[in-house]
């Protein structure tokens, strides 16, 4: 499994602010089993790139391909059996239970009039167990805490049995403890289940601790990409965010850490 973005350009139509959130000639190769971080300032195109990778948007130019096959040629359901998405926040209009939310992940595996069977329920319960939310199965989703909600949405994505998981700032609205919890979950799923992950985030330290490779996006273009150690440097952080930062290896944490110092003049 590999997910490749080749020379992709994309622009939202005239209803959006001119040029905002556009991507220009972006090429990214996500290797099988990797955990790739997408970093960049607000409006740099992280979410747009994730939506292109998920096939929700189609590129104006270039191509997104899964195992060498263009997403344009992959039927929606088939794609959904291989690529799943975890949005930043999920607000259902109705009061679904946790199990119902998770079972919705089985949608691409079922026919139009097909109802989920024991196998689907087993997969959903396994996904809940993998995210530590099995005990919440009968609870209404709306009554959960932020961290629980995010883990349930990840469980729902896992129930799709995907090879690739795309996560859009999955820890953005969570407190420190939940951030660590969700981060540990992502690392575990990547390691134990071999799920390839692409993670858009503003949290440089999260990216440093989790990701084996990084893509830095600025104004819709790739500023740099490669292994985390090579890309997460003070110089590139400064170019990316216009912020001077101290980047160094943290012995206790076992990964690079980024401490912002000041905005560059």
């Amino acid at each position: 499994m590999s997910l490749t973005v080749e020379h992709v350009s994309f622009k939202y139509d005239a209803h959006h602010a001119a040029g905002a959130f556009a991507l220009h000639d972006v090429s990214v190769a996500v290797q099988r089993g990797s955990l790739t971080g997408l970093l960049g300032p607000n409006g740099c195109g992280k979410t747009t790139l994730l939506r292109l990778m998920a096939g929700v948007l189609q590129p104006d130019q270039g191509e997104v391909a899964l195992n060498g096959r263009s997403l344009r040629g992959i039927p929606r359901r088939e794609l959904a059996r291989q690529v799943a998405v975890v949005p930043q926040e999920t607000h259902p209009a109705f009061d679904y239970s946790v199990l119902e939310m998770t079972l919705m992940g089985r949608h691409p595996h079922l026919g139009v009039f097909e109802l989920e069977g024991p196998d689907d329920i087993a997969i959903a319960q396994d996904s809940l167990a993998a995210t530590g939310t099995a005990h919440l199965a009968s609870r209404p989703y709306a009554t959960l805490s932020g961290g629980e909600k995010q883990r349930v949405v990840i469980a729902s994505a896992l129930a799709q049995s995907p090879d690739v998981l795309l996560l859009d700032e999955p820890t953005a609205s969570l407190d420190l403890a939940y951030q660590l919890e969700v981060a540990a979950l992502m690392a575990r799923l990547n390691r134990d289940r071999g799920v390839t992950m692409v993670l858009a985030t503003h949290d440089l330290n999260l990216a440093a601790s989790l990701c084996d490779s990084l893509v830095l996006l600025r104004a819709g273009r790739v500023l740099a990409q490669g292994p985390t150690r090579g890309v997460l440097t003070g110089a590139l952080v400064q170019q990316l965010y216009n912020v001077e930062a101290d980047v160094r290896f943290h012995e206790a944490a076992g990964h690079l850490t980024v401490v912002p110092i000041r905005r560059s003049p």
Partner: protein
Amino acid sequence: MTVSESTLPRVAARPRPIRMRLAMTLAAYGGLAIATCLLAPLVGSTPISFTRVFDRSIPFVDNVDAQIFFVARMPRVLAGAVVGATLAAAGVVLQALLRNPLATPFTLGVSAGAALGAILVISFGGALTLGPLSPVPLASLGGAFVAGAIVYALATRPGRAMSTSILLLAGVTLNAFFSALILFVQYMADFTDAYRTLRWMMGDLDVGSFGPIVGTLPLVVMAFLIFAALPSSLNLLSVGSDIAATRGVDVGRTQRLAFVGSALATSAAVSLAGPIGFVGIVVPHLVRLMTGVDHRIVLPASALFGASFLVACDLVARTILAPVEVPVGVVTAMLGGPFFLWLLIRRG
């Protein structure tokens, strides 16, 4: 509703399989609908006996009870069942499409279009008939289609997902605009016509014969065929359109089908019985309280419960002040209004 977690701490749910829940729901709500439709015609100014109605030993021409049951009262009951089922189902579909539990079949502006069509014909005449459809239902269908087409054209763009916010805004605006036109036409009309339009606006299930029901049946069948393919996609759509797309739902197609299906259903219902309010919102919410929110259960259950609900409301309408008949739209609104407020308070 789901069992409260507080009673089941740290126990994985042992869910009843969806197949069994669906079968039980169809049996329970279907049984209720059939029972309501068989019992409602027994009640009325002339008491009739159920056993006599179905007594095969008396020829139909001599069986006054059977004639009252099948000829005088059954068309009205069936009209109630069809209108109740279509409005409730359209309400469920629109609430999911607009991701708004407070949407109703009349949110789209289709019913105001239908009302304007009907009222123009009532006030200024018209003699066109089409099969079993007489001028007023035909004009209201025309008005509904025009309104639906305007809203649809505004909310869709080729190759893109439907804008549900534009759908909502266009529907509400069209509703207000058509309502103003209706008031204007009523103001210009003479007193008799103004009364007739007022009466039409209150809803009336007294269709007289099976003809008008048969006339709207093609639309109703089309709407329900469309609805049948939607429930699991509606579940995902009501969670979010990006989530739905990445779970394999064709979002644009589902939205278009949901719109067309509910517009057809609403047009059929309104042309048959006028704009009967509150069925499309009260019934889905009551059903959700009883069955949970899964659209694969809620949609069929709401259709069946909507049929029972409207037939029951009409029974109240024609008996509570007998021999005077209360318009059925007044009964549904008087039951539905306070319930709706209660829902809002509960949400707050």
